[in-house]
């Protein structure tokens, strides 16, 4: 069902956890749908300096969360905004068709976190 890469990220998720003093936080999905994730980012010199995730959901939801933190880390905010669901899925060696909404979620959560940062930039949090 899942590629070896998906299972590898599910087994050993990268950057799992919270950033207590995050510069931006994005939460998407909801427990009713069975998938919910929160992405935390730390921004330095317009780059994603640190990124972490917390996810409730299926194997694909966890693997895509883990994968997007790997892809986004070190990228400029403009670059990070361009990361889409297909990038995440492709990096994982593909996802089952019915699961594509999960990977959509990971990109959405990252974009929401960046928007959160940009909205609050310069204001004390």
């Amino acid at each position, binding site marked *: 069902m899942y590629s070896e890469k998906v299972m590898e990220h599910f*087994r050993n998720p990268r950057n799992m956890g919270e950033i207590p003093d995050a510069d931006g936080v994005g939460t998407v999905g909801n427990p009713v749908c*069975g*998938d919910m994730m929160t992405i935390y980012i730390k921004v330095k010199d317009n780059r994603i300096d640190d990124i972490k995730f*917390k996810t*409730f*959901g*299926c*194997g694909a939801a*966890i693997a895509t969360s883990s994968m997007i933190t790997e892809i986004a880390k070190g990228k400029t905010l403009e670059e990070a905004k361009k990361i889409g669901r297909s990038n995440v899925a492709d990096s994982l060696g593909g996802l089952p068709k*019915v699961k594509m909404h999960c990977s959509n979620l990971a990109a959405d959560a990252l974009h929401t976190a960046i928007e959160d940062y940009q909205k609050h930039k310069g204001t004390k949090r």
Partner: protein
Amino acid sequence: MSKAKRIYMDHTAGRPVDPRVMEAMLPYMQSLCGNPSSVHSFGQEARQALEEARTKVAESINAESKESIFLTSGATESNNMAIKGVAFRNKDRGKHIITSNIEHMSVLNPCKFLMTKGFKVTFLPVDQYGFVDLTSLEEELTNETILVSIMYANGEIGTIQPIKEISQMVHRNNAYLHVDAAAANGQVPIDVNDEGIDLLTISSNDMYGPKGVGALYIKKGIRLEPLIHGGGQERGLRSGTENLPGIVGFGKVAEIAKEEMPTESERLKKLRDKLIKGLLGPIPHSFLNGHPTKRLPNNAAVRYSFIEGESILLDLDMKGVAASSGSACTAKTLEPSHVLRAIGLKHEEAHGSLLLTLGKQNTEEEVYYVIRIMPEIVKRLREMSPLTPKELME
């Protein structure tokens, strides 16, 4: 336990065939190749084997005669045959059918199909344990009601229905009672006579027989419209050359089950209760799905808050354990199981469900292994989940 060992606890999804059954079937794939409809000796041998198997199936449910057993391709066909067959043949007596919210799809979907053909269908609610609401049943029965279809037991939550009580209600209103016993047959004794069942669905694989074989018991005097027209096999109700190896295997397994079920069910009940206790006891925010005692001997259905079922299955699989879940993410649809919703679980509660179904091969050692690894799995997933309350992880 060695890492290479795999533990199968998904017996509701599929079972291995009993080696004695396989042995009984083999000759019918080779030398005994006749067609029961042929006049020569090969055909006569096949006919005899067919009728012997039919007798064994009849005896396993205490049917009045082997003539009331109609062999099919499995539970889905039997359910379709019972529901659509009774409806189309008896529509002059009424066009109302009653069933429940927790039936198998092979009951719900034929009922929904009949709604497009001018029949009225009532879907009865169930309580938190999954018992059909008998007050609603009493209220919904009218002289328009021709058929009531209620499952013997639910494979997903294990709950066993009070069939005898339901039957008395249905018969007071002169309707027929169809019972889908696919999840129950082979695990609990079923007596169509004593329990007042008019039509009964059973399947072979649920008793460790081959897949692709089942039967519909039809009480003498009840008339059905056939679904499959052809050469007139099964007394015109189910045409098509009989699947003889499968049917012989079904007969053999029905015979074995009748003999061995009492002992095996007692063994399974003990294992089940150990498993449930071990899955719930050490883990906070964990719950049982279904009723604590009125449940199938092999069924351990639980749920864990804050995590999702498919993730639990993947973690278990990595540790060699095969299980099942009612979570949306393991299904073709993205909706959680209709059964878990019907017993009143919220979507997020249903998503955290885990179903372990035991079988003949499972040992006490295996149950202890699963109990041992479970807290770690739940902890790992809860650490990842944004829903987990902070104080729980401290």
